């Protein structure tokens, strides 16, 4: 299933200057992996050296912060 990921202004230079990117993915993790697969410069802004999402990066599914969603 295709999802539209909105890219905030500071990250657009690393995503082909696009406001949003369509990616496939079954989970949020899948979709993000495809996103950084497509735009490799984004990876270091979203993930730390251990491959974990940086704690100051906020990801929302629709209107909800994924930290507050059921896993």
């Amino acid at each position, binding site marked *: 299933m295709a999802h539209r990921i909105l890219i905030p202004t500071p990250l657009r230079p690393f995503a082909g200057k696009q406001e949003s990117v369509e990616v496939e993915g079954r989970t949020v993790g899948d979709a993000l992996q495809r996103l950084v697969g497509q735009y490799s410069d984004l990876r270091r802004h979203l993930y730390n050296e251990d491959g974990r999402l*940086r*704690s*100051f990066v906020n990801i929302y599914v629709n209107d909800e912060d994924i*930290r507050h969603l059921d896993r």
Partner: protein
Amino acid sequence: MELGFSVFGCASTGNLANSVSAHAARLGLECYVFIPHDLELGKVLGSAIFRPHLIGVRGNYDDVNRLCTQIADRLGWGFANINLRSYYAEGAKTIGFEVVEQLGWRFPKHVVSPVAGGTLLPRIFRGFRELREIGLVDGEFPKIHAAQAAGCAPVVRALQQDLEFPEPVKPSTIATSIAIGNPADGFQVVRTVKSTGGTGVASSDDEILQAMELLAETEGVFTEPAGGATLAGAIQLVRSGVIPSNESVVVCITGNGYKTAAETIGSRVAPRIEIGRSLEDFEAYLRSTDQAPALPQV
């Protein structure tokens, strides 16, 4: 205006909205302020009087902030605490200047500051640092302690768990001015508190209310719950010995109590007594109370 913005706005828990609305009115700017929909009426009124576009968002402050980030992106508006944040932060450091000036150009040993989005505390320290750099004050920097409500304490938790970045929480507290679950400058607060040897302290809503009452009854200062959280935190730090009782402390009381009175402390204040308009009516009232002073014999 210099930066080319035609619309001024902010995401706010209430107090910033008051300020942004007032400044926009003075400058004649189109103004949009965004607040959580269930904010206290006193805070809403403090913005509404200046006739901004006042948008109550169905969600908490973190939802409001995220929406405003998208609006700033999409419409290119200037938001005080988003794309104009560096200017907003520079303003906050003047509290550090005022503290030193009002103490006779000395540092206190301790400062207890409330933490919401995290702008204030690191900038108080920046104010201290700049004054020392230019030689207006010398000596050791104060220890700066972060106070939050227990129902919204991501920064205090990060300090206690030795995390570099606070983990966001969903706020649940009467201290709505500091109910920010995902503080934008939270990591700077953690860094500043650690570097000065300070601590983090969280207080329950009941401790907050008790501290509001104590501040009013002993200092004549009526604060809102954010100030109550700060004083309640300071009390805990003194009781636990983190702040020795013989060392100087500045407790930052950053909001007045009228704005939140009805929703928080209103039922705990002195009752209003109604009497007739004669002296006898008043003396009858005095005699009916336990603490009546002796009345002169006629």
